[in-house]
C-alpha cells in the first residue's frame, strides 16, 4: 500500500464512516457508536502508519485533477500536515468515546446527525492537513465551516440559532471576504498556489503589498481567532461540550492556526518575511490578542466562556511564535499546537463532565467539588497546569522552545508577552483549582451528585495522561519538527 | 434652404419619437401609454423610410418600358413592413392586458392600481 493510496483512503474513510453512521443510526445507537469508534481507530492507525516513511524523508504527493488551468486539487504530505492529521485523528477517538458518555448522560436529541457531521468535519480536517496547494486548502476549509454549523446549532433553540449565526457569519465573511481574495492574489502574483519549501512569494512581491497580503491571510483565516475576528469563538460556547472540544482542541481552531503557519512557512517563506519590514505588525497583533484575551478571561464567571477566551490567548501564542520567524520559535509554535490540544481538550472534557454530573457551569458553584468528583478535578488541574506551563506538563515544553526562539531573535516584545501571559494564566486557573479542592461547598448540601459517567471519565484520564506523557517522551514529535525546520536553514 | 429640408424628416422623427416617449412615461392612463407606444414606433418607421428615399427616384417596382429609371432603396421598406405588424401585435396584446387589468382592479389609472396592489 503506497503512501499515495493511504492519503486517498484517509480522505475517503471519514466520509464512508459518516454514511455508515447514518445507516447504522437507524438500526441501533450501540451499532452507531461502534461504527464511529472503529472508523476513528482505523483512521488513526492509517495516519500513524505513514509516520515512519515520513521520518526518513519521504514526501508522498498526489494530484487528483485540474479544475481550472493552473489550479488543481492536489495533496502533499509534509511533517507539519502529518503532525496535525495525527493529532486530529487521535483526539477523534478520545472525543467520540467522551461524546458517547456525554450524549447518553445528557440524552441529547438527534445524535445520529451529530456523529455524521462530526465525521464530515474530521474528513475536512484531514483534507486541510494534507492539502498540497492553497485552492485545496480553501475548499476543505469551507467544508469544515459548513459541516460544523449544524453541530454548533445542535440544540436549535433561539439563543443557539443567534450565536450559530454569529459563528457562521464571522467565519464565512472572513473566508469569502478576505481569504479568497488573498488566495487569488497569490495565484495572480506567484502563478501557482502550491506549498513549496522556502515560499513562492520571494522576489515577486515587495513593499507594503507583502504586509497587506499577510494581513488578508491572517484576518482571512477566521478560525485562528486573532483579535478582531475572534467573536465567533465565545459565541460557539452554546454548542454541547464534545462539539466545543472539537472546535477548540481537535479541529477547527487547530485548522486555523495550522493554515496560518503553513502560509507563513510555505507561501511567504520564513527568511523572506524576516527581512521584510512591513510584516512585523503580525507579532504585535498576536501579542495584543494574547494579553487582551487573558485579561478578559480573568473576569469570566462561566467556566466554558473562560476556557474559550483562554483558547483565543493560546492560539495567538502560536501565531506570535511563528511571527518570531526563528527556527526554534517555529518548533515551539508547532509543539504548542500539540500541547495546547492535549491540555485544552482535558479542560473541556472536565467542564462537560461537571455539567453532566452536577449541571454546574458557573465558577462559584465549583466550590469543594474536588471531593465529589476526584478524577474529573484531577484531570482538570493537570490541564490547567499545562496551560500555565508548569514543568511536569506538556505546556512547559512548548513555552520553553518559544522562549528560546524569542531569545535567539532577541525579540523583547515576545519575551515580555510570554511572561505576562503566563502570570495571567496562573491568575485565572489556580483559584479554580484552589476552590475545587480546598474550600467547603457554601451550603454543604449539594453532595447529591457523584462522578460523571464512566466513558467520560475514561476519556478524561487518557488525555490527562497524554498531557503528562508528552512532557517525557516527546522524541518522535521533536524529530518531526527538526525535519520541518532543517528545510528552513 | 434645401439643406434644412434634407434634415427636416429626421427632426420630425426625433420630435414624434420623444412625444411618444413622453406620453408613455408621463401619462398615467394605460391606454394613453399604449397610444404613446404606437406613436414611438411610427416615428421609427418614418426614420427608416426617410433613409430609403433617393432623389428623383420612384417606388422600387420595376417598370418594364422605362430604361434609366432609378429606384429608391427597397430594404428599409421591407424592414418596416415587418415592424408595423410587430407594432400592431404589441398593441393588441397590450390592450388585452389592459382589459384584464380593468376587470381585476376596476381602473386603468396607474396610481390607483399601485394603491390597490398595496406596498
Amino acid at each position, binding site marked *: 500500500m503506497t503512501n499515495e493510496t493511504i492519503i486517498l483512503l484517509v480522505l475517503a474513510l471519514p466520509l464512508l464512516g459518516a454514511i455508515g453512521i447514518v445507516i447504522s443510526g437507524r438500526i441501533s445507537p450501540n451499532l452507531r457508536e461502534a461504527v464511529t469508534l472503529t472508523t476513528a481507530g482505523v483512521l488513526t492507525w492509517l495516519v500513524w502508519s505513514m509516520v515512519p516513511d515520513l521520518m526518513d524523508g519521504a514526501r508522498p504527493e498526489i494530484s487528483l*485533477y485540474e*479544475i*481550472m488551468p493552473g*489550479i488543481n486539487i492536489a495533496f502533499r504530505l509534509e511533517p507539519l500536515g502529518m503532525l496535525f492529521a495525527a493529532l486530529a485523528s487521535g483526539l477523534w477517538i478520545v472525543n467520540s468515546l467522551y461524546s458517547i458518555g456525554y450524549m447518553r448522560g445528557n440524552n441529547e436529541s438527534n445524535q445520529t446527525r451529530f456523529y455524521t457531521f462530526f465525521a464530515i468535519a474530521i474528513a475536512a480536517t484531514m483534507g486541510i492537513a494534507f492539502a498540497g496547494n492553497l*485552492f485545496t486548502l*480553501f*475548499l476543505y476549509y*469551507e*467544508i469544515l465551516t*459548513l459541516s460544523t454549523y449544524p453541530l454548533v*446549532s445542535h440544540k*436549535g433553540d*433561539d439563543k443557539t*440559532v443567534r450565536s450559530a*449565526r454569529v459563528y*457562521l*457569519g464571522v467565519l*464565512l*465573511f472572513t473566508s*469569502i*471576504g478576505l481569504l*479568497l*481574495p488573498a488566495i*487569488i*492574489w497569490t*495565484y*495572480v502574483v506567484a502563478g501557482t498556489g502550491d506549498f513549496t519549501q522556502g515560499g513562492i512569494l520571494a522576489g515577486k512581491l515587495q513593499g507594503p503589498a507583502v504586509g497587506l497580503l499577510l494581513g488578508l491571510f491572517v484576518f482571512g483565516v477566521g478560525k485562528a481567532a486573532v483579535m478582531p475576528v475572534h467573536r465567533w469563538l465565545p459565541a460557539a460556547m452554546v454548542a454541547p461540550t464534545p462539539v466545543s472540544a472539537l472546535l477548540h482542541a481537535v479541529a477547527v481552531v487547530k485548522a486555523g492556526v495550522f493554515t496560518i503557519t503553513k502560509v507563513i512557512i510555505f507561501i511567504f517563506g520564513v527568511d523572506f518575511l524576516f527581512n521584510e519590514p512591513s510584516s512585523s505588525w503580525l507579532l504585535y497583533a498576536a501579542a495584543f490578542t494574547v494579553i487582551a484575551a487573558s485579561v478578559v478571561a480573568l473576569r469570566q464567571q462561566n467556566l466554558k466562556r473562560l476556557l474559550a477566551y483562554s483558547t483565543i490567548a493560546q492560539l495567538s501564542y502560536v501565531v506570535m511564535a511563528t511571527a518570531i520567524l526563528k527556527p526554534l520559535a517555529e518548533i515551539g509554535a508547532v509543539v504548542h499546537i500539540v500541547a495546547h490540544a492535549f491540555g485544552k481538550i482535558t479542560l473541556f472534557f472536565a467542564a462537560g463532565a461537571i455539567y453532566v454530573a452536577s449541571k454546574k457551569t458557573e465558577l462559584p458553584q465549583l466550590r469543594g467539588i474536588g471531593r465529589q468528583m476526584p478524577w474529573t478535578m484531577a484531570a482538570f488541574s493537570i490541564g490547567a497546569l499545562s496551560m500555565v506551563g508548569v514543568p511536569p506538563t506538556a505546556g512547559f515544553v512548548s513555552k520553553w522552545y518559544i522562549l528560546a526562539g524569542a531569545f535567539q531573535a532577541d525579540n523583547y516584545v515576545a519575551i515580555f508577552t510570554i511572561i505576562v501571559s503566563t502570570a495571567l494564566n496562573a491568575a485565572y486557573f489556580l483559584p479554580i483549582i484552589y476552590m475545587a479542592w480546598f474550600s467547603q461547598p457554601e451550603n454543604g448540601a449539594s453532595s447529591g451528585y457523584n462522578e460523571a459517567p464512566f466513558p467520560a471519565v475514561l476519556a478524561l484520564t487518557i488525555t490527562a495522561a497524554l498531557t503528562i506523557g508528552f512532557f517525557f517522551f516527546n522524541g518522535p514529535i521533536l524529530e518531526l519538527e527538526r525535519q520541518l525546520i532543517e528545510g528552513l536553514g | 434652404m434645401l439643406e434644412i429640408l434634407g434634415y427636416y424628416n429626421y427632426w420630425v422623427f426625433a420630435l414624434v*419619437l420623444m412625444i411618444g*416617449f413622453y406620453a*408613455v412615461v408621463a401619462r398615467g392612463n*394605460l391606454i394613453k*401609454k399604449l397610444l404613446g*407606444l404606437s406613436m*414611438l*414606433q411610427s416615428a*421609427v418607421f418614418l*426614420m*427608416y423610410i426617410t*433613409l430609403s428615399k433617393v432623389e428623383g427616384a420612384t417606388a422600387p417596382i420595376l417598370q418594364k418600358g422605362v430604361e434609366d429609371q432609378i429606384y429608391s432603396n427597397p*430594404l*428599409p421598406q421591407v*424592414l418596416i413592413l*415587418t*415592424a408595423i405588424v*410587430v407594432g400592431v*401585435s*404589441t398593441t393588441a*396584446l*397590450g390592450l388585452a*392586458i*389592459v382589459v*384584464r*387589468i380593468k376587470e*381585476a*382592479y376596476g381602473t386603468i389609472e*396607474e396610481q390607483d*392600481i*399601485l394603491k390597490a*396592489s398595496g406596498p
Partner: protein
Amino acid sequence: MNITPHLPALQVVVPILSAPIVLLLRPKGMAWAMTTVTSLMAFCIAIAIVSGVQQGQVFNYLMGSWSAPYGIELSIDSFSAIILLVVTGASALVLIGARRSIDAQIESHRQPFFYAAWLLVLSGLAGIVVTGDAFNIFVFMEISSLASYVLIAGGPDRRALPAVFKYLIMGTIGATFYLIGIGLIYIMTGTLNLADMEVRIHEVADQSPVLLAAGFITIGLALKAAVFPLHLWLPNAYTYAPHVVTAFLAACATKVALYVLIRFDFFVFQQNLSGHDLQFSYFMIPLALLAALVASSMALFERNLKCLLAYSSVAQIGYIVLGASLVTVAGLTASIVHIFNHALAKGALFLAVACLAIRLSSTQLTDIAGVARRMPWTMAAFVLAGLSLIGVPGTAGFISKWYLITAVLAKGAWGIALVFIIVISSLLAVVYIWKVIEQAYFREPQQANGAVREAPLELLAVTWVAVLANIYFGFYPAIPVSLSSAAAELLLGQMPQ
C-alpha cells in the same frame, strides 16, 4: 439528406413549427407532452452544435441559399453555442417537472395556448442566439418578448397583470431603441449582416451617428437585460409569474439580451469608435457595481421569497456586466462563465421555490417557517443551490467568482477596490440566503402548513438534477470554461491591444 449542415436552421425551426401543432392538441396531457418532447429535441440539437463547435466546425448557414450580406445568414461560434446550451437546457429541464405545477395554476382548457407560447419563447431565444443578422435579432426578440408577456400574465395572481404591463412597455421601448440603433448603423454602413457590419464600420468617418447608435443599442438592450437602473420591471414580473415560468425565464431570458449586448458592443463598436472601450468600461463599471450592491441590499429586506431571488438576479447580472466591461479577455471569459453558472444556480433556486410553492399557500417568508422538517429534500436542494449562488468552493458559482476576481485583480491598482465591492455584495448574498435557510430550519411551522408533504416527485427530481449539475460544473468546469475563453478570444481577437 444528412442533417448536420442544417442544424442551425433546425434549432429554430423545430420549436417554432411545433407551436401551431401544440395549439391544436385538445386532449389533456398532450400539449405538455409535445412541448417537452420538442424542447428535448432542441436540447439534443444544441448539444450536437456545441460538440461541433468544440471540434472547430464553423456553422455558417445561408437562409434561402442567398449569399451573406444579401440574404440572412445564421452563424454560430462558441459564444452563441454556450448560450444555446443554457437556453435549451433550461427549457427542457424545467418542462420535465412542470406539469403538475402548471396544472395547479392554469385551467386545462387554456393550457395549449400556454405551451404554444412557451415554445415561442424557446424558439425566439434560440433564433436570437443563432442568427447573424441585426434586424433578424429584432424580429426574434419580439417573438420571445411577446410570448414571455403571455407566459408571465398566465399566473392566477391578479398582481401579475400590472407587472406584465410594465414589462411590455419597457420591453417594447427597449426593442424600439434597438431598432433605432440598427437604423443608424444601416445609414452609415449600408448592411445588416453582423460580420459584414464589423468590416464596413472601420472606414465610417464621422463618429457621432455611430456613437448615437451605440448609445441607443446599449440602452435598448440594457432595458431588455434588466441592467441595474433599467431593471424595474424584473422583480414584479418574476414574482407574480407562474413558478415554473420564473424558473425558465430567470435562467435564460435576460442572458440572451446580455449576449446580444456583448456581441454588438465587442463585435461592432469596439472596432470603429477608438476610445470606445474606455467609454464602455467607464460607463458600465459603475452601473455594474451599483447593481451588485443596491440590488443585493434590496433583496435583504424582501419578504417574498421569489422577489428576493429576483433582486439577487439583478445583482448577478451586475456581475456579468462588470466582467464584460473590463474589456479584457480574462474579464470577458469571467462574464460568459458567469452567464452559464448563474443560469444553473438561479434555475435550481427557482425550481426549489416552485417545489415549495406547490405545497404551501404562498412564497412569503413567514409561510416557509419550519418547512425543512416536512420537505427535507426540497430545502436541501435550496441550500446547495444557495451555496452555489454565494460561490462556496465546489460549486459552479465559485468558478465564476474565481475567474471574476482574477480578471479584476489583473486590472491593476484600482482592481483591488473592485474586488472589495464584489466581495461585499457576495457577502450580502450570504446574508439573504441564510435568512431563508434559518427561516426554514429553525422557526416553528405555522399551523396552516402543518401537514405539508414532500414536493411531487418529478419536480423534485428536476430540481435535484439542476443542483447536481451545479456541483458537477463546480468540479469539472471544462466545457463552459473552454467555450467561454474561445468566445472571449474571438470577440476580443481583433482588438489592436
